Structure formats: C-alpha cells, structure tokens
C-alpha cells in the first residue's frame, strides 16, 4: 500500500506529457485511432509526476476505486505486469476506460497536482498498461473453486461484461445473452473506431471468455427467453440486467421521416457495428451527403459529426440549442472535433425539415434560442426567440438528442418495478423488485458513462455472489 511508505518529495512537473495524436488534417478522413498512446519513456515520465499522496484524492473520483497511486508506483518501478494486475483488481476493462472515461470529471478532477498544473494523466497511464499487456500473452485465471451456481447476464455492454467477469472469477457459471451479433454494447455499436478500436473491445471480451464465461449472441431476452423462464426453466439461479439505454428519441417536428434523416443510433450502428464505411465490401449501406447537420451536443453528437466527416462530408455542422458552456460532450472530444474542422452553431433548434421531390431532405428550418432561467437539470433553459426562424441547406441530418432505456425486458417481466422514464428500480446494490434479479448501468441510471456502468456491474456482482452463497 502506498500510505505506509514515506518517500522523498519530488519536484512537481506542472505539464503532463502530451499524448501523441494523428494530425487533424490526416485523421479527419480516416477511421484509425486519433490518440496513439504513450511509449514506455513517456509513461515513466508521466508516472513520475504523481506525488504518491499518503491520502490520495484521486481514488474517490474513480467510480470503481482503482488504487491509483499503487499502480502508478508499480509503473515507475517498471513492474508493468504487477501494475496491470493492480488495475484489474478493480477494473476488468482498462484499455477501454483509459480511452473513454471522462477522466477530467472523475479521477483526474481530484488529483492534487491539478491544483498547480495539469493533473496526472491517470487514464493515459491506464491505457498504456492495458496496451502493453495486450502485446504479451495474457493468462486469465479463475481465483475461486466452482460453486455450481449459474448466473445469466443480459446485455454484453460494459455493465454486463464487468458483472460477468467478476462472477466468473468467484467461481460461478456465467452465460451472457446479447441481442446483437457482436458483444460490447455501445463500445461496439456506438463509440467509433477512431476513438476506441474494435480490436480492443474484442481483446477485452476474449479475456472474459477465457475466464470461462459463455457468450450467446443473437438472443433478445424478453423474446427468445423471458427472465422468469431463465430462472424457472433454464436453470439459472440469478439474473443481471445490463440492457442499456438504446432507444433513440426524435424531435417530433414535421418532415422527420424524410430520407437522409438518421437517428444517431441508426447512423452509428450502420457505421460501427455494420461497418458501412467499408461498403460495398461490407453489405450494409450508408449515404452521406455534402452538408451534414448533427443535432445535439453530447458525446453522441460529437462521434456522429466526426464519423460523418470521415465518410466524406464536405461540411459538418453541429446545431445545439444551448451555448458552448453547456455542451455536455467531453472537452477533449469537442477540441478534437473543432480541430478537424467541424462547425458549431449554438442557440438554435430545428422546427421543420424540407424535402425534395424524391422525399430526401434538402433544408432545415431552425429557430434561434436564448437562455432563460435554469431548468430542473440546473442548466439554463433554452427559449425560442419569436420570429427568428432561418433556413439552412442540408442533405443529411443526424438526430443526437438523447436515448431512453431499451423497453423489451420491462414489458415482458411481470413484477419488475420500473420508473416512469422506463429505467429499472434497484437498491444501492443493484437488487430489483424481483428475487434473484439485479440490474445496473444505463438501464438503471439512464444514459451515463462506461465506467459508471462498470461500477454498477461490479456492485451487483458482489451482491449476486452474496445472494447465491446464502441461497
């Protein structure tokens, strides 16, 4: 443990070691990863910036409470294998979290070095370790004898994968049922290749399979089997629901069904899951025009905009109804998008889409907004300015205004308590209103983050283990 070793106070290096990236003018037309990752020297230099605080603040910012100073210390000592082990005690998917965690809001926000300069780049170090580990052969080990208990995990997103890994390590027989034909949830169908290469998701999934987890793809639970059937007839002792928030929302304005108007989910599923950027080598098509408009301001909007650019759009414009200060996307991703040439139009919202004679969108009418008093989310509410309508030309629109929970489980599981927003009600350990049924991730919280979904998967795994051992 870090706290029982006194150490000399190093001089604080104020700037973090920058992460090498593809140049904006190159990367805006390819799907290769944007950030390239630290080399060994860079990782050592960055690790040396950590003060090894006796009372580390960073840990409280991490939803899965990784022992951050401890793993950084191991990096400094060049003990990468042990460092990975340290991280994996708490986080079975470090290559992914190191890339997509909103670290500036989480661990790094609390890092003490951040008070005098850049915080220690915890996420990049985590990524370095995970990438290093992938370059050698990993042996996955179960650390407990078989219990004879069987758990069904529904959904192979971060919540389900994490719960599966933990339960398998505790000696339970785990089967994951995933509705799509590939595992990973948003990690494969939503987040694009240039931010999270799919080979990494595959490697992390392989690791989980090595732990003995069985993966059943193409099983839509609620249709192929229901949860009561899994518990009653299929021999499962407990179920974890990690089905995520994947139902797209539309705006309900006229013309929304015109050709060329995609929900962000449709667009991203086509591009990422079905690899339509490689059409016709892959069979699923996508059509991108010259002037693409993306509506919304979150990570999903940024990912859609940057993907559209890479698919060959001449101009990509993000239309957001609030101002820059309220943009919910990660700062780093907004900067990346702007560097690549994406334009943002703030304080505007669509009121109608105008189609051509073939039923394809050709323009969008918007209305200007101003910010009123804060709403229930604490952000200032956008209010339309009367008479401020304007028209902009566009041939492709991507609607990225939010996603709600997948509804099939809720409507096919009698007695499962659900909120009016469609999320599943659980206690703090993920237990639902039904015995032996647990849930976590976006299906419980609504749209959140990869690491919070993993945190929920971890907590539920612990609770399921306790339940099974008592049963």
């Amino acid at each position, binding site marked *: 443990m870090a706290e029982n070793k006194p150490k000399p106070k190093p001089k604080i290096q104020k700037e973090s070691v920058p992460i090498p990236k593809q140049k904006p003018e190159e990367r805006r037309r390819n799907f290769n990863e944007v950030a390239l990752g630290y080399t060994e020297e860079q990782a050592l230099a960055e690790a040396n910036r950590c003060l090894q605080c006796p009372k580390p603040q960073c840990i409280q910012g991490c939803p899965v409470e990784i022992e951050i100073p401890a793993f950084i210390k191991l990096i400094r000592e060049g003990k990468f294998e042990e460092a990975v082990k340290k991280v994996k005690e708490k986080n079975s998917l470090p290559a992914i979290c190191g890339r997509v965690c909103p670290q500036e809001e989480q661990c790094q926000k609390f890092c003490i070095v951040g008070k005098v300069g850049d915080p220690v780049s915890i996420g990049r170090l985590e990524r370095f370790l995970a990438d290093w580990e992938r370059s050698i052969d990993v042996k996955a080990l179960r650390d407990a004898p078989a219990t004879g208990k069987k758990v069904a995990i529904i959904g192979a997103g971060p919540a389900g994968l994490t719960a599966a890994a933990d339960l398998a390590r505790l000696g339970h027989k785990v089967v994951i049922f995933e509705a799509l034909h590939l595992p990973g949830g948003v990690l494969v169908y939503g987040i694009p290749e240039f931010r999270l290469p799919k080979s990494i998701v595959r490697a992390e999934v392989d690791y989980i399979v090595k732990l003995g987890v069985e993966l059943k793809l*193409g099983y839509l639970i609620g249709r*192929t089997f229901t949860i009561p059937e899994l518990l009653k007839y299929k021999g499962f002792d407990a179920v974890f629901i990690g089905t995520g928030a994947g139902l797209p929302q539309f705006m309900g304005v006229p013309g929304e069904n015109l050709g060329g108007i*995609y929900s962000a989910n449709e667009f991203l599923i086509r591009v990422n899951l079905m690899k339509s950027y490689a059409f016709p080598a892959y069979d699923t098509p996508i059509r991108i025009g010259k002037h693409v408009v993306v509506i919304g301001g979150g990570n999903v909007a940024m990912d859609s905009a940057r993907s559209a650019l890479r698919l060959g759009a001449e101009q990509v414009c993000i239309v957001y109804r609030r101002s820059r200060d309220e943009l919910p996307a990660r700062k780093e991703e907004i900067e990346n998008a702007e560097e690549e040439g994406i334009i943002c139009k703030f304080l505007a919202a669509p009121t109608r889409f105008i189609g051509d004679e073939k039923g394809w969108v050709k323009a969008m009418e918007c209305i200007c907004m101003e910010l009123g008093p804060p709403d229930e989310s604490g952000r200032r509410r956008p209010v339309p300015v009367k008479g401020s309508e304007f028209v902009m030309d566009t041939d492709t629109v991507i609607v990225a205004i939010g996603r709600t929970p997948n509804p099939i489980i809720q409507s096919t599981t009698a007695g499962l308590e659900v909120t009016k927003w469609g999320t599943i009600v659980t206690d703090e350990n993920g237990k639902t209103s039904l015995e032996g049924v647990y849930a976590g991730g976006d299906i419980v919280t609504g749209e959140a983050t990869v690491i919070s979904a993993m945190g929920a998967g971890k907590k539920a795994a612990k609770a399921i283990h306790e339940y099974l051992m008592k049963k």
Partner: protein
Amino acid sequence: MYKILTNKELAPKIRLFEVYAPEVAEKTLPGQFIILIIGETGERIPLTIAGYDHKKGTIKFVFNEVGKTTKQLGLMKEGEYIETITGPLGNPSEIKNFGKVLCVGGGVMIAPMFLQVQALQKTGNKVTTVVGARIKDLLFFEDEMKVYSDKVYVATDDGSKGYKGLDFLKDLLFKEKFDRCVVMGPVVMMKAVSEMTKPFGIPTVVTLTPIMVDGMGMCGVCRVMVAGKMKFGCVDGPEFDGHAVDFDGLIKRQRLFLPEERLSSLLWEKLGGCSCGGK
C-alpha cells in the same frame, strides 16, 4: 451457427428454408420474424417466420431473391450454416375466434400467411383466403391453403390465373360479411386492400416490412406513422391497423437505399458471386 436442413425452390426466385434453431422455434408464434446475418461482412435482414416445429426445433421462412443477401442465401446448401439468427422478434398476431376472417396473402408473404390461416382455422374461425401473385408461375401453397380455408380465391396481376387484380374483392365484400381482414404482401397491395375494407368498417391488420437494422428498437430506421404517431415497425409491430397506416410514407422510406442496394447486388454478380457468372 444455424444449420440449413431444407433449401427448396417454391417458384422462380422464391425459396423455402427450414433451419435448425431450437431456441427460436421454442418461442415462435404466428406473426413473428427473425433477423439473420449470413456471415461477418453480411447485412442483417428480417424475414417473417413461415413455420415452426417445437419438437424438431426448426423454423421455416420463405424469401424472394431480390438483392445481394437473399441471392447469397439462395445459393447456400443444405447442411451449411447461417451465422446468426435472432428471434422470434416482433409481437405475435392476435389469434382468437373472430368469426369470419378474410386472409389476403400476396407474393412471397403467402408463406407466412399460411401459418396465420392455419392458426385462425384452428381457433374456430371461418377463413376465406386469397392468394395473389404477379403471374401464375409465382403462385404457391394454393392447395395447402384449401385444406385450412373454407374458400380460396386466386388472383394475378396479369390475369394469367384466377381473377385479374384484386378488384373482385369489392364484390366479395358487398356479398359477404367479414369480421376481420388480415393482409400480408407488398405494401401497395396492403394499401389497396385496406382502402377496400375501410368503407365496410372491417378491422384490417397489415404486416409492415420497413427497412430494419437491429430489429429490437435501437435504430429507428423502421419508423412508420400510424394514426399520426411515430411507431417502430420492429418492436411496436410488425402488425398494425391497416386503416391508420401512412402507406405512402412507408413506400418512400423502403426505397431509401435503392441505389446502394443495386450497386451491392450488381458488384457481387459481376465478381461472379452468383451462379450465373456475371451474365
């Protein structure tokens, strides 16, 4: 992996498959569909389930070879495997004793209609069935339908067999009283029949086939307007009230990717993918 047990030609470019998929078969009810993907680079395509055997663990579907995926599928041999089949998807049909039911099946959808007819007859309905196709060579299951229907009518677009077109239905509707009408077929046909039954106030159920990707409510490409509200074909349907569907909107959305689909199919044929070797 799902083993193909039967690959049979029912009519030119129309094939019936029977596939071993015990977990899908176990839960299937009439009106539901599957999504299949042939292999890694494939597209996810929806097909209506046209038969199932809980004991044998098999499902049947019938498809038209219209584009790359369905042509590729048609070339697969008995004993080969389809990579993924997800299902049963969508809501099952409402099957109960309605009284007298008019079932209209057109084109390839005659096959799943046969399943409906059987189920409706078994629950005590009097079933009048219409099978329609473009030309007489594309008709199938006429005799099978007769076993489960009180009366079977045949219609073709060119009049090469039975009635020419569906106009005769108007007279039928004047002469006989139906309590329900079920239509499965091309969108234009479902639209025409729905328009005919509307003045008679006969509840009419249509099976919509919008473009789909995931088939589980995640992408919204399958959106259709029903009674002025946006519905997702895959999770809210596939069956809807024929008198409330915006068919013209659906037709437009079905054609969205036509140029890409043609390109994909053409390239595949040019590269010798199909049995005709590029002719």
